[in-house]
């Protein structure tokens, strides 16, 4: 049996599924089911033959799951299976109840407890800035670099930025534009991403959970997560996101901090990091550290945040260095 993960998205019209394949090139198959079992939006994610995958996706779109399984199952390409065969197995897993609808948003966890990490955000598809940032961060002796979206922007360099993020194994989450581009919905003047990089964006989580010393933290981009189909106010980390996005308007409205302080005992983390506001911010409220990750490049400077576990507790600094784009 393939590894199955109930990831997210469920509303009254669609249930979304993520199937972890075995023996084929794409590691994941994403699809949606509506009504009883009508198939929609099949995506073979992370590899494989793009043309054939697209053909299969188009042929099955809008068809009842039961009616197409016989045409998909048993086809061999490699390792006694194939992409269509894996799709058939995914449908079988749904029917058996082994594959549950995925969650609205993906949560990833950095399994290693870190002592010193770097936050970068709002790269906006700027390859020069990313290159300069990675050079500067090299001297910071950090144990991990977390990219808090948007990696992409209204830029022709998006492909290169995504490739570099992937190459340097930066643990990134998807910002609003990253998510939009992952769906193939680039803004008008921007060239479409390569299929490979689109898949990289599609597989990015919306929430990153991490640990600094003995403090657990979560990072997310912003409000777009609340608009994903099936978002629940009671999902893990929804409380933290609702408080940042809606109650405090990204920590800009300090008048409601007393209310925030009353809510933090219900938080599941002691560190909350966000980046939609594009401003570098640091607030300690109710025993929780809130960090706003600003723009990677601003007014002739590149910027990044360093969070360190020290003997005196957590220490946070925003660093900057002058940078002149060519």
């Amino acid at each position, binding site marked *: 049996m393939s590894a199955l993960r109930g990831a997210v998205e469920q509303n009254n019209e669609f249930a979304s599924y993520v199937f972890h394949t075995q023996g084929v090139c794409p590691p994941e198959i994403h699809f949606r089911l509506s009504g009883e079992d009508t198939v929609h939006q099949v995506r073979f994610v992370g590899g494989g033959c793009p043309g054939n995958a697209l053909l299969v996706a188009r042929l099955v779109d809008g068809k009842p799951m039961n009616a197409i399984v016989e045409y998909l199952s048993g086809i061999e390409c490699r390792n006694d299976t194939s992409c269509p065969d894996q799709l058939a197995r995914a449908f079988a897993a749904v029917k058996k109840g082994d594959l549950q609808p995925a969650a609205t948003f993906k949560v990833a966890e950095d399994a290693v407890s870190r002592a010193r990490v770097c936050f970068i955000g709002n790269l906006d598809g700027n390859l020069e800035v990313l290159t300069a940032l990675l050079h500067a961060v090299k001297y910071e002796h950090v144990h991990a670099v977390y990219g808090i979206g948007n990696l992409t922007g209204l830029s022709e360099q998006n492909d290169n930025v995504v490739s570099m993020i992937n190459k340097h194994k930066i643990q990134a989450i998807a910002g609003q534009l990253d998510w939009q581009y992952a769906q193939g919905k680039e803004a008008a003047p921007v060239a479409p991403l390569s299929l490979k990089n689109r898949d990289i964006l599609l597989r990015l989580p919306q929430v990153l959970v991490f640990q600094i010393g003995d403090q657990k933290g979560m990072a997310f981009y912003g409000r777009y997560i609340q608009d994903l189909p099936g978002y629940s106010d009671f999902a893990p980390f929804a409380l933290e996101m609702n408080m940042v996005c809606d109650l405090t308007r990204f920590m800009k409205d300090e008048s409601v901090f007393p209310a925030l302080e*009353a809510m933090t005992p219900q938080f599941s983390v002691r560190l909350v990091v966000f980046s939609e506001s594009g401003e570098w911010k640091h607030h300690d409220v109710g025993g929780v550290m809130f960090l706003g990750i600003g723009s990677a490049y601003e007014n002739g400077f590149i910027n990044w945040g360093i969070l360190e576990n020290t003997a005196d507790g957590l220490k946070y600094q925003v660093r900057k260095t002058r940078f002149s784009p060519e």
Partner: protein
Amino acid sequence: MAESVKALPNKIQELIEIREWDMRTRKGVDRFRELKARSLPSVALDGTLVYESLIPGQEELIAEIERRYRAKNP
């Protein structure tokens, strides 16, 4: 806070309609911001924020409800 309101005597309960908002939800937060509240717990009467950060004594709350009821039903 909701408990203190729900614990009001029946004769007062008959005069009012109680709505409780869950601050964990976006609807609850929206209502909180509409009322221009800043802290919790908060109680609004007739759509106006009256008590913030404190739970009024039952006598005080009853008196305020009755005052408002009389004003609307002279």
